[in-house]
């Protein structure tokens, strides 16, 4: 007999889309917030162009774009348990704790592999 699924799952969002790549990043963040609002155990990892979403010095309003950094700042309020960035991409995009919209940890390739291995669901945007 199959056991009932757990009502709370560990869900990892890997966000690779940058702030100016159409709606991709915006909709990834929407999915993060919705999943957290349903009280799932949500972790977010930024890599590739997605790291640029953390840069608090961006001024998307000047391009009449929505400021996604404000939405990322709300992750804590929604109970998103941890935020991480790939070490190499952090350097590539000059992301530091001083210029980021939120606190984060850095993960090398092994760390990312371990993070993924510990999840029930991993969604890549």
């Amino acid at each position, binding site marked *: 007999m199959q056991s009932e699924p757990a009502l709370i799952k560990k869900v990892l969002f890997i966000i690779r889309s940058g702030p100016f790549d159409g709606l*991709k990043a915006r909709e990834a963040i*929407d*999915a993060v917030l919705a*999943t957290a609002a349903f009280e*799932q155990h949500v972790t977010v990892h930024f890599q590739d162009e997605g790291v640029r979403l953390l840069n608090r010095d961006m001024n998307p309003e000047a391009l009449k774009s929505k400021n996604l950094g404000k939405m990322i700042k709300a992750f804590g309020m929604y109970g998103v348990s941890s935020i991480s960035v790939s070490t190499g991409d952090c350097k590539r995009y000059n992301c530091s704790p001083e210029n980021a919209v939120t606190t984060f940890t850095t993960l090398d390739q092994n760390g990312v592999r371990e993070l993924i291995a510990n999840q029930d669901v991993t*969604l890549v945007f």
Partner: protein
Amino acid sequence: MKFSILVTCPPQAQGAQSALKFAKASLNAGHELHRIFFYQDAVNLSSTLQIIPRDEHNLNDEWSAFIAEYKLDAVVCIAAAVRRGVLDENEAKRYNTQGYNLSPQFELSGLGQLVDAMIVSDRMITFK
């Protein structure tokens, strides 16, 4: 095994066809398909206004026929859909548009349906 599928790529991308092939193969192998959730540009797979040239493969029709044949739960994210001009009759009234174009095999609903699919399913497979 109980699967759910998340499709995020546009109809023109290989992922949209791979998702359909995976869905068919999983049912043929005796698995259960709890839900297919269409998000981001994949919402266009549910539009009846996507006109495909006659000498090209019509993936929209194939998805619709597959969903109807197996009576599958095919949910299209409502926020992603209305942004891209995919509306059902209710949304057309709400936004006062001239018409609506959601294929009847699909249903507009919120991201809660995606979360529910994650919780209920043994595996969530993404095609992007």
